[in-house]
């Protein structure tokens, strides 16, 4: 390449760090988003099959209506809104939290793993700025991920449940899923800043999945309700699409908004003031 051609090359229109992270994480974003969105869409599409299943169950358990109701409640086949939260929403939430944990860890640990950290952290850009750029990338990718899942879910709901759910409640639930994934991503990001190479993507995903199951135990029985406060998941396990904002656990929402902020603050401070590796 000649000098004249190089001079014609346009500089990055946005921050080079931002553009770099966009390029580095595009593949994972597409893979996670497309898989999650298709699964959400297919799950919504299966609601009609659930209705058939329920009718079959009604026949099977005609003599035991209590058991029939319990099974229906578990599947969420009473109406499409509840079904969405219990089936599609949980899949979306689980994949979202896994993606958030994976991305939060990869954004920090990726450079340490492939050796590019030396090049990156020896330029005249402060560590804080580099880390903040990475965090912005995390939030934007999570917004895109949730936007794609949300659109696929909404299209499915409109096709198979038009008029049977409150669209505003759907948007509220969508918002809570975004908040929850950002909370999870921030926690993973903070842990990665603390742990550096020791905090692997595998470990971050294990922590995220463990959070999910702890929260699930929390809603399974009133004896374990306190568990729902221990993870950011409690908000998205509530039947918001059907019942609206009244069922939201605002305490859990507040706790899990404050915790990542505090963690991020100390993690960034620690990262700034210690060896890179």
């Amino acid at each position, binding site marked *: 390449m000649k*000098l004249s051609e190089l*001079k014609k090359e346009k500089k990055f229109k946005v921050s080079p760090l931002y553009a770099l992270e966009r390029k580095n994480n595009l593949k994972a974003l597409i893979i996670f988003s497309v898989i999650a969105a298709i699964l959400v869409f297919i799950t919504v599409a299966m609601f009609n099959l659930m209705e058939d299943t329920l009718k079959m169950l009604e026949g099977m358990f005609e003599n035991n209506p209590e058991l029939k109701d319990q099974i229906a409640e578990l599947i969420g086949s009473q109406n499409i809104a509840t079904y969405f939260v219990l089936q599609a929403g949980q899949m979306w939430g689980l994949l979202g939290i896994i993606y958030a944990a994976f991305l939060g860890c990869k954004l920090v640990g990726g450079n340490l793993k492939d050796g590019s950290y030396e*090049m990156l952290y*020896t330029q005249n850009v402060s560590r804080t700025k580099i880390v903040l750029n990475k965090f912005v990338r995390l939030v934007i990718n999570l917004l895109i991920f949730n936007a794609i899942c949300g659109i696929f879910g909404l299209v499915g709901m409109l096709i198979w449940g038009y008029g049977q759910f409150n669209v505003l409640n759907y948007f509220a639930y969508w918002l809570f899923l975004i908040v929850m994934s950002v909370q999870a991503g921030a926690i993973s990001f903070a842990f990665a800043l603390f742990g550096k190479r020791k905090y692997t993507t595998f470990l971050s995903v294990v922590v995220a999945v463990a959070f999910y199951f702890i929260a699930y135990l929390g809603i399974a029985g009133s004896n374990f309700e306190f568990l729902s406060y221990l993870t950011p998941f409690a908000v998205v396990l509530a039947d918001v699409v059907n019942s609206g904002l009244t069922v939201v656990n605002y305490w859990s929402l507040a706790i899990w908004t404050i915790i990542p902020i505090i963690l991020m603050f100390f993690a960034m401070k620690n990262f700034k003031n*210690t060896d890179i590796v």
Partner: protein
Amino acid sequence: MVPCEVMNLKKYYGKNMGVEDVSFNVKEGEIMGFIGPNGAGKTTTIRAIVGLLKPTDGSVAIINHDAFKEGDKARGELGYAGGEPSYFPNLTVLENLKLVADLKGVSYDRIDYLATKLELNLTRKASELSLGNKKKMCIVMALLSSPKLIVLDEPTVGLDPIIKLNFFELMEEEKKRGASILISSHTLTDIQRLCDRVAIIKQGKIIAVEEMAQLKTKQLKTVTIETSYSSPQITLSGVSNLKSNGNLIKFNYNGEMKKLIKFLNSIDVTNISIEDAGLEEIFLHFYE
């Protein structure tokens, strides 16, 4: 203004010592060599200079900016290529170089010149390059912004002889421009050829900082003698690095010439060669 000043640098990894009380500086427009065996603390010192490591004690100043506390300002005046090539593997060579130029806030003007000089293919994916080409790419990254201080850790590893010559030319050009250069290397001939001064580090401590010319004129001589009988006793004091192969004996000598000549007269020497010791011999002498 001293471009790089390392003051009583101490770095511990937990209880393990990395370097202890390292002090030296790199003056304006000079090429400084940094030599020492593996594990002596060269890379630890260099990584503290470029701000990757936080000193346990002491400090590093780059153009009057603390390398760790004011890292972004200090690194604005710095070009660095580490011992292990560091780059973004999923980008091409050109994309990597453009990224560095953008982060440094400089134009792409020098990319073409430097890449041509080091015969670097800009279109290849960085991860597919050989070690030598990766090193060349990292050298170009370090020089892109025409920094005041250039820090290169083992830059000639993997370079073929012709590219090495071009690299030496580049270093001379940078020196003429007024840049200060710190080079760590195991290849002592490279250090001997390039550097104005050399700092020698041993077990985490600087044991000597010498002008290269002064180092070469040290009394250390390499003496090679051939005798009429095998394995004569070498009882002379000041002898080091003694190697004997039948009638042929080679050693380094650091002492008075009179005593050497007197000793050589006492044994039956059939052939003799006395030379100024090369840097390698001087280096080994320091480590004995």
